[in-house]
């Protein structure tokens, strides 16, 4: 199982799913129509490291974070 957490304004509880790569996570989350607008503009971190490769492999216990558009200051 991997944990998916939704940061900032996405305001959703974390979920646990079975996934062996970020592609699996993408396919799972794309089924949720309410998430579509967030997937288009969110960056992704795995275990708090930013990741830009959909083929990134995942292992049991990994944490995937969705980071929507930011505005500090």
């Amino acid at each position: 199982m991997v944990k998916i957490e939704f940061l900032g304004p996405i305001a959703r509880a974390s979920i646990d799913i079975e996934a062996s790569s970020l592609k699996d996570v993408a396919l799972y989350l794309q089924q949720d129509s309410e998430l579509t607008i967030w997937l288009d503009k969110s960056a992704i971190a795995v275990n708090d490291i930013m990741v830009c490769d959909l083929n990134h492999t995942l292992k049991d216990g990994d944490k995937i974070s969705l980071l929507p558009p930011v505005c500090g200051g």
Partner: protein
Amino acid sequence: MMVEIYDGPLDIKTIFANWLEDGMERNWGAFIPFIGIVREEDGIEALSFDIYQPILDSWFNDWQAKAKKRGAILKMAHSRGDVPVHTSSYMSAIFSPKRRVALELIDEFVEDFKANAPIWKYDIINGKRVYAEGRSTPMRGAGLLSKKD
């Protein structure tokens, strides 16, 4: 050196004094602070912030390493939660032996902060917290999970 996170508005005078004291002891030639103040506009009572600290810290540490290569160091403080108008939510500063490096770095650092620090801003209007989506910037690599293959 970590980002200083405070609940509510920043105590500018205390933070500034601490940074200044630290810098004065280390023979820096230039100290350039930047202080962001919440403006009263569009009927907002306050801004409010969420922060994801693990990635904020690693983003800041990367910048600290870049600054170190140029002989400088960075300081940064940010608010979490509500920050009323006319108070401060953000401070950063560069210490450098020479002014030119400090002037360039404060510009680059603050711009990248706006685009890539994992901080989310909300307007507080009539007591409601509204995501400042129109003023927010997608981070590097955004949209990865919307791809089909």
